[in-house]
């Protein structure tokens, strides 16, 4: 029977949650790296036992950990993220120039074809790649150097590169997203990049439809249709049917179009999930009801999924990297909250149950479907 392994990054360590294909009884392993912030943990799709983790702290900086046994044991690898050349400045919150400074790794995206190749999205925003299992890191500096870098500015969480999508049908195409610069695409393996933000509108920047400056929170795509992208922006849920060349809004009947996560059903590329969050400053579910919203029409028409989720007095957040799906026949959907709960649905969102309730604040959730 298939198994599922859920990789959870939290403010105070990493946890590995495992279950068989029924997904009703879970074993919890952890905390790994206790006391450290674990922004992201993700396994290689080529070798599921190869797992990468981003470990950091305000005191002691950044480490990258690698496991070759599915998260049982770990080894620290390279942690030198040096920008290519003199990095220059981006904009600070008040619009003044601010030096580019490495702070942390937000997201690790293992290659679709080589377990030793992994991409890292960092703060201050840049994309790095390792081809030796994380020992050495090199910046793909064409992104930061394509021209608009000095106009990028941080969102509230920092100027982070948080989304990396590798196109399974075209190894030279990569999508990334930065808060608060927007989405970018390369079609030549990372040498050159261009902004793909046409159609986004953001009233919090001087020119609401500027080429860059949009606070993209998350992008998701289904592997079978990599030209169709779904975006949760600071405000607005957006869709592109042409690999990001243009976007249109699909927020439809959502109670609020603010949120962080967005993901796609493993077998139904028009079925997508978001968790609406109240903003601008509250950042908890509207009315204290934790609801996942599902659209089976690729957006615009949304239904609330509430069974098994708290429907009163719930004031947690669901952060941008904290939702994932498995690929079992009945698609499992998972998300983690800042209250330390990890919720799972084994029926595509119809019903939910917590796997764990009392972890530290959850920063990221990834899922591996194992034979």
């Amino acid at each position, binding site marked *: 029977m298939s198994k599922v392994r859920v990789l959870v990054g939290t403010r105070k360590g990493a946890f590995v949650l495992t279950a068989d294909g029924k997904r009703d009884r879970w074993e919890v392993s952890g905390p790994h790296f*206790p*006391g*450290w912030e674990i922004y992201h943990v993700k396994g290689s799709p080529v070798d599921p036992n190869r797992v990468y983790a981003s470990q950091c*702290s*305000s*005191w*002691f*900086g*950044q*480490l990258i950990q690698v496991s070759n046994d599915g998260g049982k044991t770990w080894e*620290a690898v390279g*942690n*030198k*993220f*040096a920008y290519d050349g003199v990095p220059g400045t981006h904009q600070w919150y008040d619009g003044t120039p601010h030096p580019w400074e*490495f702070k942390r790794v937000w997201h690790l995206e293992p290659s679709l074809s080589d377990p030793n190749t992994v991409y890292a999205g960092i703060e201050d925003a840049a994309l790095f790649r390792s081809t030796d299992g994380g020992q050495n890191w090199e910046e793909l500096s064409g992104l930061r150097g394509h021209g608009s870098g000095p106009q990028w500015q941080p969102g509230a969480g920092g100027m982070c590169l948080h989304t990396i999508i590798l196109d399974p049908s075209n190894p030279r195409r990569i999508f990334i997203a930065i808060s608060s610069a927007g989405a970018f695409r390369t079609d030549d393996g990372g040498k050159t990049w261009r902004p793909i933000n046409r159609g986004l509108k953001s009233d919090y920047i001087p020119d609401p439809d500027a080429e860059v400056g949009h606070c993209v929170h998350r992008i998701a795509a289904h592997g079978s249709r990599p030209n169709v992208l779904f975006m949760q922006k600071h405000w607005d849920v957006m869709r592109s049917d042409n690999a990001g060349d243009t976007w249109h809004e699909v927020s439809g009947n959502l109670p609020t179009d603010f949120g962080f996560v967005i993901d796609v059903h493993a077998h139904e590329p028009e079925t997508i999930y978001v968790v609406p969050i109240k903003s601008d400053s509250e950042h908890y579910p509207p009315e204290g009801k934790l609801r996942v919203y599902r659209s089976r029409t690729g957006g615009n028409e949304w239904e609330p999924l509430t069974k098994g989720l708290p429907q009163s007095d719930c004031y947690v957040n669901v952060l941008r990297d904290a939702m994932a799906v498995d690929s079992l026949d009945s698609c499992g959907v998972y998300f983690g909250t800042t209250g330390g709960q990890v919720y799972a649905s084994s029926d595509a969102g119809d019903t939910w149950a917590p796997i764990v309730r009392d972890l530290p604040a959850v920063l990221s959730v990834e899922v591996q479907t194992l034979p």
Partner: protein
Amino acid sequence: MIRVVLPPNLRSLARVNGEVQIDVAGQVTQRAVLDALEDRYPVLRGTIRDHVTQRRRPFVRFFACEQDLSHEPPDTALPHRVVEGDEPFLIVGAIAGG
């Protein structure tokens, strides 16, 4: 032999318990101690001082002999009692909540 006390997070990272003792060739300075420490425990590179600038990380302090040496130039000789192994060189994470 120089005695070095690491903060708990770095002890677990380096997989050591209690003090570590390291040989330092030449003059015993902050830089020489950190170089020797990182040679012996490569996992500590980048955790005490920045990889690129080699500057002390902002939330890390260096104490010895009841003195704060955090702001001493890195090539200044450490106190005699540290050099003689009578007192440890303390690497301390700044006290800040969370």
